[in-house]
């Protein structure tokens, strides 16, 4: 299979419906079929990466488990946009270990390199 890289931009917060889950399903699908894929969390998407989530209190499925399973699918890291974290007063230490911080320039580079960019 030829390889075409996908970039998934995740801007939605978790638990507002299931948009966050369908976003992650898309990331997993590319990974599962061995296609290069990157996931960048920005804007309210950074909230998806907060550790110690307790969504069972609002009868929602815990997104943390799905995110922590990404390395099993070959995605050891996801990127998170630094400026989105700053705007929301979130530190890297508040986030899951798979989160790696990037700046706008790095995000721009990822966008130019990708064959397809899907935004959720």
């Amino acid at each position, binding site marked *: *299979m*030829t*390889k*075409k890289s*996908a970039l998934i931009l995740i801007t939605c917060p978790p638990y507002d419906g*299931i*948009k966050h889950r*369908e976003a992650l*399903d*898309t990331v*997993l*699908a*590319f990974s*599962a*079929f061995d*296609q290069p894929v990157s996931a960048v969390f920005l804007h309210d998407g950074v909230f998806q990466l907060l550790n110690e989530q307790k969504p069972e209190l609002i009868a929602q499925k815990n997104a943390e488990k799905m995110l922590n399973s990404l390395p099993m699918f070959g995605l050891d890291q996801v990127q998170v946009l630094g400026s989105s974290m700053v705007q929301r007063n979130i530190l890297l230490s508040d986030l899951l270990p798979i989160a790696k911080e990037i700046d706008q320039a790095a995000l721009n580079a990822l966008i130019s390199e990708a*064959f*397809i960019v*899907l*935004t959720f």
Partner: protein
Amino acid sequence: MLFTLIIQHSPQQSHGPRNALQFAKELINQNHRIYRLFFYREAVELASSLPVYTSDESNIQVEWQAFIKEYNLDAVVCIAAALRRGILDQTEANRYHKTAHNMNENFTLSGLGQLVDAVVSSDRVIRF
């Protein structure tokens, strides 16, 4: 060139489905080919045969279905997204013991693997 179109929103929430249809028609006019149409998230409702539109509204549902049929296009609806939104074909209705099925015959239910395949196989992927 070979195109795949990804449609994600319902006609009630977005102009996307209308835009996508006009774009798809223009692709055909300009002799491009459509590899696949992939309906995800709220756009799965475009595959339902049930919506009723008023007579002074354009019926985007019927227009999409007619277009897919006319050009014999591969219109894939994401099965996970469809099931949770109540868009079922006969097979799934039987499988889950539902009283009815509502999916228009011009669509096929399948997984996200078809989206990945479409991305790999197409020259251009446009999302609406």
